[in-house]
């Protein structure tokens, strides 16, 4: 059963929450410091499942004064796709996605307020959003409370169809608490509600159905999603300092939405310095989700139900990520003047196993093909300069 929440109700709820947030931060006033100035330049590469995505990314943050800092972020995805969806119903394609963000942070005693604007631009998709976050140290700085609100607006087009123009909106509301528990242990609890409305389909993707009137035995029709989606995520994290100077990280997140998808993910991370110049990182993450209520790998006939999806991201699947990384603190002679700088290489391998998404390019006949799965390699190489 898909839960429908009207847009007005969501806006009203968010207004009430926003006023409540303001009341907290006008009542409390204690201190903190802004993060130090830094610049990061990154190259990212994703390869797996017929997709290759790579490009650069830059993140710069600079304090203008002790109480005001600016951030700028640029990100490029260069995508060439011959994924299983594309191979079964369309032709391989290439595209680019440019993303930019600008932000400002303001520190007042122990309150940090930040505001950012963001734009992501593709040939057929323009996303713009605003975010507001506020955090407050309290209780002798053992506790940090943070709250945030975002609004996003998306313009969706379909290449090759000039008459196609759709829109969607997204509201996000989040809250979190960081707590120092012992001299070696901190914990964080975060929650975030996301409410989408509008055109939420992928305009290109189709579902397949049994059609015995044609030789292939399978017909295709466009996906059709509900026009609202509301989700809620809760994440618990903990960081533990080990006695021999290493750090252990734990994350668990539970997610559910009005499309009846539920997911759990759990991650363990470990960071270990070697000498004064090297840090090693290891991580393992397991993710599992159930499928959307209106998802099917193969519908029994055309227009089998009012909502139709065959997006593998909405199907029942699990994934396992193994990751490693190394950071090298550059010696003085290789850095800029006496500034600290470091280089980092991170490599993740992700195995995706779909439990109800069959590979239509495989043998076996319609509905009896082997289940789909693939591995992806994700590489990040970046240079960080602290100034």
């Amino acid at each position, binding site marked *: 059963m898909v839960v429908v929440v009207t847009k007005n109700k969501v806006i009203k709820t968010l207004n009430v929450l926003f006023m409540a947030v303001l*009341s907290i931060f006008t009542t409390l006033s204690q201190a903190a410091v802004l993060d130090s100035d830094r610049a990061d330049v990154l190259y990212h590469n994703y390869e797996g499942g017929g997709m290759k995505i790579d490009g650069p*990314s830059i993140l710069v943050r600079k304090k203008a004064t002790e109480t005001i800092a600016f951030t700028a972020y640029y990100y490029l995805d260069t995508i060439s796709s011959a994924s299983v969806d594309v191979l079964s119903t369309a032709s391989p394609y290439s595209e680019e996605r440019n993303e930019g963000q600008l932000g400002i942070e303001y520190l007042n005693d122990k309150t940090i307020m930040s505001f950012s604007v963001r734009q992501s631009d593709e040939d057929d998709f323009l996303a713009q959003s605003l*975010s507001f976050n506020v955090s407050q140290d309290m209780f002798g700085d053992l506790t940090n409370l943070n709250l945030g609100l975002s609004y996003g607006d998306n313009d969706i087009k379909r290449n090759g169809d000039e008459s196609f123009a759709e829109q969607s909106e997204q509201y996000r509301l989040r809250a979190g608490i960081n707590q120092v528990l012992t001299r070696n242990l901190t914990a*964080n609890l975060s929650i975030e509600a996301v409410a989408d409305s509008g055109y939420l389909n992928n305009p290109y993707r189709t579902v397949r159905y049994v059609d015995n009137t044609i030789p292939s035995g399978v017909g295709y029709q466009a996906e059709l999603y509900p026009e609202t989606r509301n989700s809620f995520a809760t994440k618990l994290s903990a960081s533990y*300092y080990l006695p021999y100077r290493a750090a252990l990280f734990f994350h668990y997140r539970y*997610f559910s939405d009005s499309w009846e998808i539920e997911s759990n993910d759990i991650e363990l991370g470990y960071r270990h310095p070697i000498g004064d110049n090297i840090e090693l990182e290891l991580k393992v993450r397991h993710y599992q*989700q159930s499928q959307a209520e209106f998802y099917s790998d193969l519908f029994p006939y055309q227009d089998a139900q009012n909502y139709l999806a065959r997006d593998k991201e*909405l199907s029942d699947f699990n994934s396992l990520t193994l990751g490693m990384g190394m950071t090298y603190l550059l010696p003085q002679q290789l850095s800029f003047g006496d500034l600290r700088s470091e280089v980092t290489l991170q490599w993740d391998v992700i195995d995706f196993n779909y439990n109800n998404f069959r590979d239509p390019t495989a043998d076996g006949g319609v509905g009896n093909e082997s289940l789909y799965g693939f591995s992806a390699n994700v590489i990040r190489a970046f240079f960080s300069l602290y100034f």
Partner: protein
Amino acid sequence: MIKHLCKVVLLLSFISLTGCASLSVEPWVKPYERQNLADPIMRLSRHPIANMHVAHVLEAREAARGAEGTGGGGCGCN
């Protein structure tokens, strides 16, 4: 589910408005005992640009979204 979030935020507002949060709480981990927690290796945001990429890679391939810890804003992709 939004109702649950409302309750949490309204409770926090109530605590702050009633002055409970301004009570002087004796920190059980003193500032001079926090050198381990302040070590850069303990920072979840040690590599913010990498965290943003990880969140983007996952959000584009998983139905789950939210509470990633990277400030939010959404995927902006289809």
